[in-house]
């Protein structure tokens, strides 16, 4: 069942069309019973769909419990990692879902400052968000939100710098405040000290998009959408060596095999399945032994990997794991902000070695160097960038060592 990507809801910035299709109902219920919002999300089991899987109601409660009148909400649409293309779809095709979710968050947490934080490289999303935000300004529901929180709602679009690290929570805070998106140390966490050192709720666009539906249809309805213990639906960004790559909205917990071989149409050119780079791509690779895994946060974690953003980059026989890993590590190296030396130096050196190996210029000792780096780097940066690079390196090296050895110089 499609919820977020229901074609009928893909009305772009047309607010009247959104309202005509059931939009505003969730927000109206939230306004009628503000105290029930967070318990409903808890009962629904909504979790952070930007990759962390953190229970949404806990973040909201934490912000709501902070003192002081000034609070912020950042709808995080900075999406920039290879293989993930869900948020740009939501922002361009159905931005009102996201905004309505953010306004419900505003009512629940008392935050008057609501920022749609978007990646400027996705021009269609930026345009749609500007138009959608303009449409909300004169709407009576926006005025009702202001009345409910006792402050004038300030809803606006902020374009990020387009850097990958701008999606990290503290990087996003810095970006919204006009600075370069340098991640900073936590604590203090954004829920206590975010924008202007004020309590700030940061949720991924996909997470917020679910909120209006949950308020409208109820927690039980949402839970029932998922398979097994998992709740709701998930946007899987399927790409790589499959017949039908694209965005697939499926029940949370859909097995990998079903995603690839049913919804994805199977492997491209009938090649054998080899592996999947999941959500980032900054996690341990899933292999043929994992085809039965249910794609939800817990089940994927039980296989030693992570669901992440729901990106699934499928690799078939004939595609080089080494080449793919080199590409992804090069991405991380280019996007390291440079604050933490092990990340700045380490990602770049790993990238260089992988590039050399892949281009036939490998040296004796390269694999030991890569292994050593993959031990050294995890946990050495203040944000997760270096961990992601090290994990994808270590995993590909462990699982597909033969491909690495084959790239070494002979003799």
């Amino acid at each position, binding site marked *: 069942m499609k919820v977020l990507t229901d074609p009928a809801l893909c009305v772009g910035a047309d607010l009247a069309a959104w309202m005509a299709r059931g939009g505003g109902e969730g927000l109206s219920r939230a306004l009628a019973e503000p105290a029930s919002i967070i318990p409903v999300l808890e009962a629904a089991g909504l979790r952070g769909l930007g990759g962390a899987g953190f229970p949404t109601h806990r973040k909201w409660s934490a912000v709501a419990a902070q003192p002081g009148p000034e609070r912020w909400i950042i709808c995080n649409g900075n999406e920039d990692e290879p293989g993930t293309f869900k948020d740009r779809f939501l922002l361009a095709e159905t931005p009102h879902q996201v905004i309505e979710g953010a306004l419900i968050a505003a009512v629940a947490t008392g935050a008057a400052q609501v920022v749609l934080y978007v990646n400027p490289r996705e021009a269609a999303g930026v345009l749609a968000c500007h138009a959608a935000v303009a449409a909300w300004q004169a709407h009576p529901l926006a005025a009702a939100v202001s009345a409910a929180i006792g402050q004038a709602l300030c809803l606006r679009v902020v374009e990020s710098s387009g850097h990958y690290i701008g999606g990290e929570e*503290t990087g996003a805070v810095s970006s919204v405040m006009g*600075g*370069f998106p*340098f991640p*900073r*140390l936590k*604590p*203090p966490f954004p829920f206590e*000290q975010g924008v202007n*050192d004020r309590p700030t709720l940061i949720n991924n666009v996909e997470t917020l998009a679910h909120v209006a539906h949950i308020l409208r249809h109820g927690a039980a309805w949402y839970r029932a959408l998922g398979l097994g213990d998992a709740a709701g639906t998930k946007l899987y960004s399927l790409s790589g060596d499959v017949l039908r790559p694209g965005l697939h909205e499926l029940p949370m917990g859909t097995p990998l095999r079903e995603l690839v071989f049913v919804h994805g149409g199977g492997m491209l050119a009938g090649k054998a399945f080899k592996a999947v780079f999941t959500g980032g791509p900054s996690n341990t690779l899933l292999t043929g032994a994992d085809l039965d895994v249910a794609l939800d946060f817990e089940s994927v974690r039980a296989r030693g990997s992570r669901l992440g953003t729901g990106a699934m980059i499928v690799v078939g026989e004939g595609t080089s794991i080494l080449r793919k890993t080199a590409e992804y590590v090069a991405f991380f*190296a*280019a996007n390291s*902000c*440079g*604050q*933490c*030396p*092990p990340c*700045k*130096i*380490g990602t*770049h*050196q790993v*990238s*260089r070695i992988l590039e050399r190996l892949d281009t036939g210029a490998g*040296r*004796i*000792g390269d694999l*030991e*160097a890569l292994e*050593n*780096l993959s*031990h*050294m780097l995890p*946990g*050495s*940066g*203040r944000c997760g960038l270096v961990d992601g690079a090290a994990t994808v390196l270590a995993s590909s090296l462990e699982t597909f060592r033969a491909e690495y050895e084959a790239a070494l110089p002979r003799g």
Partner: protein
Amino acid sequence: MTDGGMSGGIGFAAALAAWDAAAPAPARACGLKVADLLRGFHPDHRPGGMVQLVAGPNEGAPCPAQLAALLQSDSLLEDVDLAGATILDADVLVLGGGGAGCVAALAAARAGARVLMATKLRMGDGNTVMAEGGIQAAIGAEDSLQRHFEDTLRAGHFAADKALVAALVGDGPDAIRWLVREGMSFDLADERQRMGGALLRKKPGGATAARLLSYRDFTGLELMRALREAVLLQPGISVLDGHPALELLTDDRGRCGGAALQDLGQRRLVLARAGATIMATGGAGRLHLAGFPTSNHYGATADGLVLAYRAGARLREMDSFQFHPTGIAWPPHLEGTLISEAARSAGARLVNGRGERFVEELAPRDVVASAMLRELAEGRGVGRDGKLGLFLDTPSLEREQPGILAQRLQTLSHLAHRAGFDPAREPFLVRPTLHYQNGGMAIDTDGRSALPGLLAAGEVTGGLHGRNRMMGNALLELVVFGRRAGASAAADARQERPRNLGLNHLAGWRRGLLAAGLGLEAKGPLLFPPYGNVTPQDLRRHAA
């Protein structure tokens, strides 16, 4: 000395046109003797650049103003804050988790001490991993300890402590053996000979023999990798990440007996009591002395110097810093990041806003940096988005040696990619960047400071480098003096146990500040530079 010698400069577009019209750039004669150039433009020498310390053990000594303000600051803590704090006991407390701290912790633990290592950020997240060049040790047949000794003294303008330098170079070969035993890899003269092969030796700048040992071009990262694994596997070492020291603890005789740590995660104060404390907190680059950008890590905020000075330890050469000529000047988010000397060695020229070369690019670092600062001060710099720099002419280099950027200068190309331009078409904008603290805590050859119970190792110490550090001696220093300080601390801890610990030194320190007319408004250490969002006031609040 408040702005690093900035003034107007020539607009980026005009400078680019001048560079393009003139390329390859014609050289302009310097017109100054080297000594005059240094005296006139090196930040260490510029008149008005230094203030005199008016309180503490180094009263009367020159020191950069920002550093002086921190050294002569009041504590973040009061006695009352210590009430109810969690107490941890160890034989040896190591403050800092970079190279020196790890080596010291290992040495102390292997000498039988129970070691607590507290880091501000996390183990290994420091400047050590950024050392690209290598580590010096006189192991070649044609080399000698004497030559290493003389090279080091000469590079430091003969200001170094000879006994310390003798200890450094004398322990050098064994330090390398120790690193190999710890599992560190080195480049081999013949890569195919895996067992019993000789180490590859290169000649560092200013040396009379091939003495620089390396591992690829990330020697520091490999060193830290081996040290980190060794620390994690070593029984007897507990590591506390995210626990910066706010104050040293002293007993009623003035002896150091540990430190008050801030547990950043739990937001509580932890009192770490120890028979001996080793300061391994690194340098001061992130103070951006005189407004300079820095190649240093975010954590390099002179915390150790501030705590040690306040408790009575003497410092030396606090007016001497090394500036690397080619730090990135633009874009702002990469400001200060190093472009290694490899670019100039390969033939890249420095060009001013008028399209002129103005210095022999391979002259010593202090000379090149001074010549660059002169250009900036005299209005021949290049201004871009409020940042001022000089061109590092990579396009001409690529034209003269096609393919060199992609093949030999990959790190430079990677930086350009991150900065968002093509180095084959557009020159880098660079300016001197604060690189290394030559001075620091005065220590003896066993790593002991003048304050009983307090030892030190690494960049936080002074005396080894005189007024200018040789490439490759920083990594050697942290191994040699980390080992010495660790062994000494373990021995000291067996003999001395702290008693009546507290902030006993602060009353006298505060009286001294007031007597010098300084007041108690300024607090230190800095711990986190401003853009880190955690202010000392936050810490104070959380500690209370």
